[in-house]
């Protein structure tokens, strides 16, 4: 049995959840076994949508109101042990990543994060993962009969869902939490960076925080998340959570547009696996051009508003 943690966010399933579900289903198929999705806590989204991505069964554990590492790890490990699962798939979101270490210990499993593709083999389990901040690709082998796989968001293409013939089971479940969430503060309307399909990112070339309007406008036009280079968040022009790179968020969107960013090795380490990279920089010698698919030499203050207009024209 292959298990997948179907994470909810504000009661909804995110794209990364469906990716993890699809991944687990593909593993199950390859091994001639079944995939089971575990939903924990309140879910306002229909659990049928998980079945449509290939799992045979959805187990909904009611009880916990909010994510807490130890509690979720204990609940998932309990199911893994009950069903003798060989693989537990989680997606590499903030919660998925926070969970992996505790889940692995609790379920007596190996922990393999940053996985980018379906397993190369199942016995022994071998998977490909990113290492050294995307500067290397590692083939990793599990030494234990059970493994937790952390899947990088956007690494596998999400296929269209099909009709669901999954079974559903509801259970009440409780495990002790070791910490209590007092409050959550969510930046409204923003698209979470790690799983964004498109990212518009800007650096010190924007000169001042008040110039970010045009960046946000371009991002809005594209339905993209906004990001920034490290110095921009260090000096407080943008929030920390937008900082991408080796020491920030690692992204691999379909489209990454870098504006006024020089392309330092630490920045590239977090963004170079993006499928298509567009660089806009006034300096033709900027190192970022070497890592780009499309480059524009020009002043961001001139180019960005015109690019937004050109995209709007195209979208109409």
């Amino acid at each position, binding site marked *: 049995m292959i298990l997948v943690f179907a994470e909810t966010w504000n009661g909804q399933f995110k794209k990364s959840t469906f990716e993890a579900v699809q991944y687990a289903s593909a593993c199950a198929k390859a091994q001639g076994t079944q995939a089971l999705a575990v939903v924990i806590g309140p879910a306002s989204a229909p659990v049928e949508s998980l079945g449509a991505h290939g799992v045979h069964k959805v187990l909904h554990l009611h009880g916990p109101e909010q994510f807490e590492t130890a509690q979720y790890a204990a609940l998932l490990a309990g199911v893994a042990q009950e069903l003798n699962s060989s693989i537990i798939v989680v997606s590499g979101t903030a919660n998925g990543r926070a969970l992996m270490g505790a889940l692995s210990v609790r379920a007596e499993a190996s922990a393999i994060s940053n996985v980018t593709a379906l397993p190369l083999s199942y016995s022994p389990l071998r998977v490909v993962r990113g290492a050294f901040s995307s500067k290397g690709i590692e083939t990793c082998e*599990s030494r234990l009969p059970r493994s937790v796989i952390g899947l990088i968001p956007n690494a596998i293409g999400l296929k269209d869902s099909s009709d669901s013939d999954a079974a559903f089971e509801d259970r009440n479940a409780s495990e002790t939490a*070791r910490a*209590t969430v007092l409050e959550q503060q969510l930046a409204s309307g923003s698209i979470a960076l790690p799983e964004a399909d498109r990212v518009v990112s800007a650096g010190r070339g924007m000169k001042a925080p008040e110039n970010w309007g045009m960046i946000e406008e371009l991002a809005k036009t594209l339905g993209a998340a906004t990001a920034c280079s490290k110095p921009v968040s260090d000096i407080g022009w943008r929030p920390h959570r937008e900082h991408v790179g080796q020491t920030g968020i690692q992204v691999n969107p379909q489209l990454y547009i870098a504006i006024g960013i020089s392309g330092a090795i630490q920045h590239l380490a977090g963004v*170079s696996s993006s499928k298509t990279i567009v660089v806009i920089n006034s300096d033709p010698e900027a190192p970022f051009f070497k890592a780009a698919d*499309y480059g524009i030499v020009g002043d961001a203050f001139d180019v960005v508003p015109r690019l937004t207009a050109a995209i709007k024209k195209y979208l109409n």
Partner: protein
Amino acid sequence: MKILVCISHVPDTTAKIQFTADASALDANGVQFVINPYDEFGLTRALQLNEQLGGTVTAVTVGDASVEPTLRKALAIGAHDAVRVDALATDPIQVARELSAVALAGAYDLIVCGQESIDYNGGIVPAALAEILGWPVVSPCIGFDPAGGRAKVTREIDGGKEILDLALPAVLGAKKGLVEESELRIPNMRGIMSARTKPLVITAPQGANPGSAAVSFTKPAGKSAVQMIDAQDLDTLVQKLHEEAKVI
């Protein structure tokens, strides 16, 4: 407060990553190693807490003798003593088991890790260590304020943050925000001198087995040459993004 800071010894962020001829491991030739950047945030917060509340700050690394300069650097920055667990660390669960033995031997109030190490980017150790110990864990941690055996801890979540309440002892996975970049400490001359005489204890490993092992490494395929587009001809860019790259 008695604090244990887990330090990972990693290639400098500017290092060009190369692998050995048989592709089985990192080629460490010519690579400069540093304290994992996330651990620097954790170490700095630990030192601040120590200045407010007293106690000790101990730095620990699981690794062979080659990691000692990195531990000495942690001492130079201000840790009081250091422990090196003499084992080659190849797997996060193994590292967590070795660290848990150090944790239990020292009766710590707080263990500070980084949210992940920038070498293998595992992000596994903090929660694994906490689970072995049966302690709460908060990662990525961007705020920590203790009061009377408890703490208010801020955790970064996708699209925002949350504030948790927990009882100590606990494990943190530090990230920028726990302290600001500008607060990070660098060793000064006095620190470097005193680091030479601070205790660095070498302990024998428990012999925990790794849960996984690296089989081989490759480098990502390079990008094909960039296509430069005239800044006056943005319609061409839009067209290429649609037709060639198929991303809009």
